[in-house]
């Protein structure tokens, strides 16, 4: 690896081997944290005493190797790689007192905590699944009671039925062909057409707001759209030499005037 970008890391053969072993089955991992946890096992120490710096290095080797092998890595693997590279630099460089934010040690400690917690949850999950379980290790009464005296029908439904039922109704309408809802959009073409018709009467400086179409000024959404398109249409008319436009100061009303003696 002469073109190794990470020259400062003397990447060990074991790291390479570990990374390659991991890469063979990228799909088998449930995300970057899972990969980190697996990598951390190669350090063979208590998770609380793990070297996060080593771990970051191992992970970066993993990502780099995966790229070399042109394996598809999900975006979150790359995000984690970027973050670990950042963490690594924080851990290696002396702390900069002017720099804001948590120290490298704090970040490393949190990562170690996350790994330890994930491992702990996996351990208890396994213990939970190994519990004596109904229908496997212990059993409920197997026989239906033979006394049939009163037969009442009890209707039942689960929460899942309820939520799925609701979702079903509320998403039924979502499958119409895709169209933009345009009722609240006043297009520039519409504005231009309207302005051309009105501009003949604009001999004096007039607030642009007065050119807005009727019924488009009370709803904020419609007002925005109409204002934007009317402004754009005005600029177009200025370019064509039909209009003059001015604004006395920032946020002041924009005023329009017809250009006399149209060419």
């Amino acid at each position, binding site marked *: 690896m002469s073109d190794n970008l990470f020259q400062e890391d003397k990447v060990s053969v074991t790291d390479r081997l570990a990374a390659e072993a991991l890469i063979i089955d990228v799909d088998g991992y449930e995300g970057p944290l899972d990969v980190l946890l697996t990598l951390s096992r190669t350090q063979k120490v208590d998770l609380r005493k793990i070297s996060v710096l080593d771990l970051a290095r191992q992970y970066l080797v993993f990502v780099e190797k995966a790229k070399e092998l042109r394996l598809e890595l999900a975006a979150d693997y790359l995000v984690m790689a970027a973050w670990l590279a950042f963490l690594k630099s924080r851990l290696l460089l002396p702390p900069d007192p002017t720099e804001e934010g948590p120290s490298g040690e704090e970040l490393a400690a949190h990562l170690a905590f996350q790994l330890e917690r994930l491992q702990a949850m996996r351990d208890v999950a396994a213990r939970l699944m190994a519990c004596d379980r109904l229908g496997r290790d212990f059993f409920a009464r197997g026989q239906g009671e033979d006394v049939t005296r009163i037969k009442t029908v009890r209707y*039942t439904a689960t929460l899942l039925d309820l939520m799925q039922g*609701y979702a079903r109704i*509320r998403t039924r309408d979502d499958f119409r062909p895709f169209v933009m809802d345009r009722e609240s959009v006043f297009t520039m073409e519409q504005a231009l057409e309207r302005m051309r018709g009105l501009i003949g009467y604009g001999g004096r400086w007039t607030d642009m707001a007065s050119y807005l179409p009727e019924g488009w000024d009370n709803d904020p959404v419609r007002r925005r759209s109409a204002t934007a398109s009317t402004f754009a249409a005005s600029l177009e008319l200025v370019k064509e030499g039909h209009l003059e436009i001015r604004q006395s100061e920032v946020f002041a009303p924009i005023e329009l005037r017809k250009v006399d003696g149209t060419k």
Partner: protein
Amino acid sequence: MQDPEEIEQSLFEAPPMAEQERMCEAVLFASADPVSVRDLEARLPHGSDVPQALTLLQKRYEGRGVRVVKVGDTWAMRTAPDLGFLMQKETVETRKLSRAAIETLAIIAYHQPATRAEIEEIRGVSVSRGTIDQLLGLEWIRLGRRKMTPGRPVTFVVTPVFLDHFGLETARDLPGLKELRAAGLLENRPPPGEAFGEDADDSQPELFEED
């Protein structure tokens, strides 16, 4: 009973009689059908004396709320006949609620108080009288306050019985559509860029957000 000495001596000794008895007890309890002696012998460790274990077990349950009875060539456990009256509630048949009823119930739960017209508008079909009656009968919904709109229509709300059945503390704990979608509970996804039922009205304004 076998001589304990003898049991000790055999290579695969049968468990003690008390243990055999509790084995029979567990099998009889868990089996869906009465169990034959031969079947018990096949399940229990080799060398077990099933008839004797059953006799002891039967004796142990004498006068209890449960009895060990012989049914033809098979054995079973039954509740004592004199306590049958306690079991009256036991014989309930459960049936799934119809789709119409579930949807109606869901709309009431999510939109309460909801009028019949509102339910019909959301479902897109009319709500049959029987559906409402069934939900009222189950005590999952009840009448709420009348709406202060023309005609003052009655409204429906869900009941504590409903919350209890569905394991909810309040109807507000039901996930909204966004959450349902996020949890993967929606069977379908809307086309990209398309607004979703509930959020349809606020997606456009977000494009031109007021500040």
